[in-house]
């Protein structure tokens, strides 16, 4: 409603004019103060200033075709060598001058014998094999939220990387870049590990087989969770959804799934040797979905027990029917 025209009013005195001016000034100052008080000086990752980039990371070697090998035994390094040989040799995937990243699982500051993290023997052997295949550099990384330096050191991964001539990249706050996954529902304007990928030409994920309280199992696909920064624990509310999106995010050159000892209970942290079962298997594959579907069997499950594997298969992110890849089976006595 438009207010009625007040008509000619009394002329204000000088005192009245200053009084009104003072009130107006106070109101403006109060409004400004309120705005300053409510202003968020630390917006989420300062993402508002930049357009979120496409965070997808594709390092697949399509010319090699889908390949998979399942080795059995107890010696991780020997199983790795045999599995790679059965897939045509590491040279099929790593070439001269490649800059290789090994994405390990270093999520917890626990000793390697507890099986909660990537075993240092695999890190050392993979780094050595990559260098032998002509890789110009190998870096090892993960993003443990709590005490990353302790995680790398107490798991033995840091020492293994140094001993094999690989670099160790410990993320810091500036190592992430806002990314929005095309077609993604959860990874939107989210900090994704970026800095160590500069110049990287090949990516290998290396993870242990573990039961997981929420996801059912933690294997190579869940391992990409370490590429996420920020308060990522909220993704646990849709753990299957985020694992599927991580499979959309990352296309690795290879994945190595270590089921030498599988964490059957109390995963993903474990804590006791009693949580482990000797399953004597190491899986190497170009397809993380196939690798995890095979790894699920070590936990007494099938891919149908893990909704993220079912969804990833339906979305064409890989095949849960790992037998369709005709995996090379490399028994222990073959070495």
């Amino acid at each position, binding site marked *: 409603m438009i207010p009625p025209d007040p008509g000619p009013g009394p002329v204000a005195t000088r005192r009245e004019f200053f009084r009104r001016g003072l009130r107006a000034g106070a109101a403006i100052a109060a409004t400004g103060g309120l705005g300053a008080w409510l202003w968020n000086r630390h917006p989420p990752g300062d993402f508002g200033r930049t357009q979120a980039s496409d965070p997808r990371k594709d390092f697949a070697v399509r010319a090699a075709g889908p390949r998979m090998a399942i080795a059995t035994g107890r010696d991780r390094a020997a199983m790795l060598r045999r599995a790679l040989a059965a897939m045509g040799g590491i040279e099929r995937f790593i070439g001269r001058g490649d800059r290789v990243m090994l994405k390990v699982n270093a999520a917890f500051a626990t000793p390697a014998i*507890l099986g909660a993290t990537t075993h240092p023997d695999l890190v050392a052997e993979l780094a050595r094999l990559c260098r032998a295949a002509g890789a110009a550099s190998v870096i090892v990384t993960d993003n443990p939220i709590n005490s990353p330096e302790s995680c790398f050191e107490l798991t033995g991964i840091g020492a293994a990387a140094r001993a094999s001539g690989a670099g160790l990249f410990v993320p810091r*706050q500036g190592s992430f870049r806002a990314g929005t996954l095309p077609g993604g529902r959860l990874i939107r304007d989210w900090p994704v590990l970026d800095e160590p990928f500069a110049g990287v030409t090949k990516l290998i994920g290396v993870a242990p087989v573990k039961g997981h309280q929420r996801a059912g199992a933690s294997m190579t696909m869940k391992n990409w969770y370490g590429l996420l920064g920020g308060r990522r624990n909220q993704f646990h509310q849709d*753990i299957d959804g985020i694992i599927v999106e991580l499979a959309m995010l990352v296309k690795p050159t290879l994945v190595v799934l270590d089921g030498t000892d599988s964490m059957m209970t109390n995963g993903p942290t474990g804590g*006791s*040797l009693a949580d482990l079962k000797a399953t004597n298997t190491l899986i190497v594959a170009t397809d993380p979905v196939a690798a995890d579907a095979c790894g699920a069997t070590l936990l007494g499950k099938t891919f149908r027990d893990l909704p993220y594997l079912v969804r990833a298969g339906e979305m064409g992110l890989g095949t849960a029917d790992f037998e369709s890849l005709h995996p090379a089976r490399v028994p222990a006595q073959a070495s």
Partner: protein
Amino acid sequence: MANLCSPFGKPCGVSAAGSLYVLRALDGIATHSGMQHSKARSPGPGERAIAACSLAVLAAVLAGVCIRQTRFDPAVMMSAGVPPAAPAQAMPGLLEKWPAGLSPMSGAEAFSPGTLSDKIDGKADLYLSAGFVSLKDQRVALAGGAGSWMEMLVFDMGLPANAFSVYSSQRRPNAADAGIADYSYEADNELCLVHGNYYVELVCSDSSDPARRAAETVARAYVGATAVAEHANMGAEQALFPPEGLVAGSIALVPSDVFGFDRLKNVFVARYRDGGNEVTLFAANRGAPDEAAKVAAELRGFFVADCGGRETPAPPAPPGAAIFDLGGSFEAVFAAGPYIAGVHQAPDRESAQRWLAVLSRRISGAHP
């Protein structure tokens, strides 16, 4: 409607009328300054257009804010919690004085419900659903242990029952009673105990004898140095389970979503050998007979409506008991006094009926 800025004693909120008041206020100041206008006038078309444009811009901003807020944006949620860096808090050591031969490798850290998953990732749900309050942890080195070390994790679970819940649900199958505090066991490289409302894990980097002895020493030192409120143990509920056939160490307290039914909480369960099979017995004190009967009725409904179960002929005892066939696996439930109890995943109806009778007699004997 906002009423923030009228020096003329009139509102100047976000409305067409308010805009005109503002224009008139400016007009009044200009008049007083002797710039022009010997008499007041109605706002002109230009002024009305400016007011309308201002309101349109404000409306667009409001609509934009509303649309944006309806979309889940984890990046915005991220800013609402604890700062991403250094979520754990440094604090004094878990023991004022560590036993001889042990030296802290670092200061202790503390985690809240909001940061627990930073430490234990997907296992956080287990603790959060059981009433987790806080976690403090610290690592100590073992002198002469060739690199051996131990991590001590102290979970404050708020109540002794909550602490027993997480303790019992993680008990390892090869655990041996450690004889420390309310409940305790050793399994390979680990010693776990319940002391009042605290659940404590001592995880050694190896399972050597020196490491295990050190864990035991630390456990005793912690219990001796940590006062807890006087509390009753959970012996009364555990005594309801018959000893014959009981799988050792299998009694556990499940805090929530028992058997997938969200109304069934804080239930004691125990596993039993039944020939070549295993069955689970369960019992929970609901405080009053009415409440126990109500939950039992809801559970019966759950078996039929949500699990596709078929009720079989009523067993002879106890009164009001029911047995359901869930496609070859049998569930039984009854209420007795303040207790709801029953049998879970019996291999056949006879087994369910037999265990139902045994459990019913135990409960009647304990609470006639």
